[in-house]
């Protein structure tokens, strides 16, 4: 590969976290019948959209405007996609959010959407939003159990993505248990500046160790946005000064939280 970078990278990239709080029993378990089902219940849907709106209000009021706003996996109810588009236009930043489980042709998909307002990265009013859908490759065991309880199977998406964000560097995205996909890091190595992971993950401590390891192996910033129900959203950057490396870590369970963090882009 030719390495003649003629891009003047920005010094920092601002990322806004909206750590929404979703209880999986509220979302996919029907206590009256004792069955699991998709999509998420209406109670969970209205809770989610309320928290998303609250989160956007918080994030855009920070003094440093975020270029990216990330939401956890399994956050956005499918009927509320349009609401998120309007919020994306209003916030003038790229939004990455995980969809609720989607019924595909062959099984259940786990998708995320990337919404780009048409004037990004300028802070001027955009008129429309472009969307790009990505899918999950490796499903976790609890998910497979859930699909088995519903009587369906999973539909993985084999592709991996590399998002060129021009002056803000290159971004790789993984959905939850794709973070354990070794091939992904082989191919990402030396190509990306930021790795965004959106997750709905119970085992937060192992993700924390992995974030540090991957950050050194791939040499990139690792940003994990986990659901507030389990907590522990992380931003880790491979600075040479050890005290600078933990940019952000939000511990504690059953919490709704927002934050804007500043991550280095240039060398």
């Amino acid at each position, binding site marked *: 590969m030719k390495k003649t970078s003629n891009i003047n990278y920005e010094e920092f990239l601002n990322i806004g976290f909206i750590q929404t709080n979703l209880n999986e029993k509220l979302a996919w378990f029907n206590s009256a019948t004792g069955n699991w089902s998709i999509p998420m219940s209406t109670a969970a849907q209205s809770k989610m959209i309320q928290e998303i709106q609250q989160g956007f209000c918080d994030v855009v009021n920070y003094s440093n405007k975020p270029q990216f706003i990330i939401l956890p996996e399994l956050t956005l109810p499918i009927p509320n996609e349009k609401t998120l588009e309007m919020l994306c236009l209003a916030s003038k930043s790229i939004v990455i959010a995980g969809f609720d489980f989607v019924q595909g042709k062959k099984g259940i998909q786990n998708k995320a959407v990337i919404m780009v307002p048409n004037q990004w990265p300028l802070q001027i009013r955009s008129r429309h939003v472009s969307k790009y*859908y990505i899918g999950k490759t490796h499903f976790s065991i609890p998910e497979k159990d859930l699909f088995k309880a519903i009587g369906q199977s999973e539909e993985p998406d084999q592709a991996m993505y590399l998002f*060129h964000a021009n002056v803000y560097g290159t971004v790789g995205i993984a959905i939850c248990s794709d973070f354990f996909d070794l091939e992904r890091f082989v191919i990402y190595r030396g190509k990306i500046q930021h790795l965004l992971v959106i997750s709905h993950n119970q085992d937060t401590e192992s993700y924390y160790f992995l974030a540090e390891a991957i950050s050194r192996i791939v040499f990139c910033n690792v940003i994990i946005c986990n659901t507030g129900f389990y907590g522990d959203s992380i931003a880790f950057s491979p600075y040479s000064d050890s005290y600078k490396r933990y940019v952000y870590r939000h511990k504690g369970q059953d919490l709704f939280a927002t934050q804007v963090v500043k991550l280095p882009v240039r060398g």
Partner: protein
Amino acid sequence: MIESTILGIGALLACLLSRDFGLPAYWNTDGHQRAWLNLIYTKLKTSHISSLTKQLLDSIFSKRNKETDLLNLFFPEKEYEFFEDTLIDPPKIITLKNLSDFIVASQKVLKSYRLNIQDNLPRQLIPVSLKQLTQQYQPYKDEEDQQH
């Protein structure tokens, strides 16, 4: 003639990418094919497309490019100059050679991002430019490093 051939190849490419050979029904209306060109994006909504392939589709199905051509047709005498607003438009595809050049360039990038590791199964990395998802139809115009 050559224009409709390019359009046909573009439609075929879109079908292959979305793995579905149903084309928009609106295209069947005589004389309205051009008006509904951007319906192809609805078809490709959930497909995984790299930026160079999208650039190719953008230029085949671009209404702006068609209008630019028509503008020269309607105002052949250069009595006045037009303001140049085609800088962010998709590149023009005029001949079949142009088209094949674009396809080869797009394939080359995708090939360089493919690898087989476990069980020799292919994994494909798809490069996507966020700039292209905004307004700019030529994603790598001023960034040579990502073109290879």
